[in-house]
């Protein structure tokens, strides 16, 4: 698999289990070096940045996950669909991507706290654009 890299995390096995990764993901997770976890939400995005992030998720993530986040080539990201997923697993996936799938890491466009913020909002039911 050449599409994306995903670096090891201390939660590697847990993440793979939670996110349903197959043997390939497990192998990759155990084989690579450690990377930092998204930090706890210590610096919440500003209101203006939040609006940008909401738009980004709806519009850009939406090209694979659907603008209503009901899924497409990427899985659904509704609150119901994510009910059994861990927040940190979601944040890692957003920030670093997911090996063996088309999900890229968004680290070039997001900070770790922003990935964490998005993960929290997804788990709670993602806001519509125009909402705060």
């Amino acid at each position, binding site marked *: 698999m050449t599409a994306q890299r995903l670096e090891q995390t201390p939660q590697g096995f847990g993440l793979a289990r939670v996110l349903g990764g197959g043997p390939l993901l497990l192998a990759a997770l155990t084989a690579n070096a450690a990377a930092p976890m998204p930090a706890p939400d210590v610096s919440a995005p500003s209101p203006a940045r939040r609006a940008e992030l909401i738009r980004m998720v709806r519009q*850009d993530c939406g090209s694979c996950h659907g603008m209503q986040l009901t899924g*497409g*080539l990427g899985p659904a990201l509704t609150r119901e669909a994510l009910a059994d997923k861990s927040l940190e697993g979601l944040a890692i996936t957003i920030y670093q991507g997911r090996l063996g799938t*088309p999900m890229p890491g968004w680290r070039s466009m997001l900070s770790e706290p922003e990935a964490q913020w998005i993960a929290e909002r997804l788990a709670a039911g993602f806001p519509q654009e125009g909402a705060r």
Partner: protein
Amino acid sequence: MNAMNRRACLLGGLALPLAWSGCAAVAPDAASGAATADSALMGTGDLGVVIERASGSLALVNTSSRRLLGKVGGLGDLSHASVVFSRDQRYAFVFGRDGGLSKVDLLTRRLVARVMQAGNSIGGAISADGTLVAAQNYTPGGIKVFDAQTLALVADLPAPIDAVKQPGKLSRVVGLVDLPGRRFAYSLFDADAICIADLSDVAHPRITRLDGIGRQPYDALVTPDGRHYIAGLFGEDGLAMVDLWDETPQVRRILGGYGRGEQPLPVFKMPHLRGWAVAGRHAYLPAIGRHEVLVVDTTTWQEVGRIPVAGQPVFVIARPDGRQVWVNFAVPDYHRVQVIDTQQRRVVRTIEPGKAVLHLEFTPRGESVWISARDANRVTVYDTQRIEPTAELALDAPSGIFFTARSARLGF
């Protein structure tokens, strides 16, 4: 036509075809009341539609006058929508993300039929004879085929991943195209397969399935002659090609290992192959995970060059004469469009039509190209000779642009 429609109603609908559906919706052109013979009749060869993705409506446009003619709403979630046209170029079939299939009359500017045919859909195709419309679905994975007149379901073709090892599990379908002879080809993202469905007898569809074509086909195209079906692979470098003229079609790998040994870049949006670029004997294809356009010789199917571009290519589309190829990009480089000169095989111009360029469509002869910029809320029309903007239309988060001339092209 609307003017004619209105007048006809006043006259009691004498000698009109049965299809007229009433007089209530009077469009802007007709509202003036100048129902002269000149304004009453209208062709559809220079019409088109633009998807307004946020509001779920279809903007009807005229590519000669470069004007917005009207809008048709109520089409559901159009966040990933595509459109095919009836062969008389009067009706647009709109495939919505939410599984809605809508039939819109471009002349009366009305929604004339609509079915919810799936839970999650990605596009569709129309048969060469114009009788069948097929939708490709993610949920439930498979294709469904409809009567183009009525939108009645005529065939439901689920796409099993592996009927033995994973009974009941269906694959998401990508890359659906029409083929000559009431056939359709499509690829199975989750099953690494290509299917060819023959609906010459709709009561008894025959499906030829080719397995093991390569990992994760994400989209596909058919060459303008209908001979080669090519699926792009996300899960490995290369593309899977089928020569449909073979007695027994087989899959052959082309451009295998085009990125071998190099770190792929993140792909923030999947490229689309459908609007593909054939210019002379060469095809121009988006690389995956590389900021390059690959140039392939269509007689040998060997790579003959690569053109560095400004980002991950999404659409790589040739001007109809093949002299230029225009390219747009995935986020974060999606404020740019680049123009490749096919004689020099390099980028000769970079333009910035607005933030979030999602699509581009050439007029039938290619003198103009229409480019949608979602976040700029506009469509800009460029003169392709000078590569300069010549008109602008304000639209609400525009995405896909589709002109009726598509109805005459195989694979569109």
